[in-house]
């Protein structure tokens, strides 16, 4: 019962973080800031979802398998995020600056 409640909480939190990541991707002004949104918010969302489902797993092995996905996703994000940022910089994409009021 308590596990179910925790799972509900974690799945909803995951959905919120994924939504925030998408919102950042749509709203943020340049590729660098969008990368921040995706690399960080989406990974946190995935972590919440994985933790929530691991609580419901039938065996320890399944739970560990679910949790093993998270570090892989983190590695992918860090590596791909770096590649994209470097490519943008090499393409001469100038970081967005806020306007003084």
């Amino acid at each position, binding site marked *: 019962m308590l596990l179910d409640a925790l799972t509900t909480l974690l*799945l909803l939190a995951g959905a919120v973080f994924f*939504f925030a990541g998408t919102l950042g991707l749509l709203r943020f002004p340049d590729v660098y800031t*969008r990368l921040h949104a995706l690399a960080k918010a989406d990974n946190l969302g995935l972590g919440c979802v994985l933790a929530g489902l691991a609580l419901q797993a039938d065996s320890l092995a399944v739970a560990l398998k679910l949790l093993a996905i998270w570090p*892989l996703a983190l590695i*992918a994000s860090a590596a791909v995020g770096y590649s994209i940022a470097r490519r*943008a910089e090499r393409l001469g*994409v100038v970081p967005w600056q806020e306007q003084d009021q």
Partner: protein
Amino acid sequence: MNFTSAELALAVALFLLVNLGAALWRAARGPTPADRMLAALLFGSTGTGILVLLAFAGGSPALVDVALTLALLAAISGIAFAQRAWLGKVEEDDAA
């Protein structure tokens, strides 16, 4: 509240699918080629999330293996992309 965890998982999976669609639209729209590369990040995180949620909601445990493989491939290809830049000393031309 009257719903099971499986139903919630299905609902969240559908919600993530909508997110993925919106995000892919942005990635496809650009404006720079670097923006389009953001799609690669989306499949690693949102794609994996949808797969594990569906595995739980649909009761097909094999989808967890698919998700694990997808995450593994995303990590390996990400490292392959970044490796020369991280470990290499010279910046060669990679205009392709």
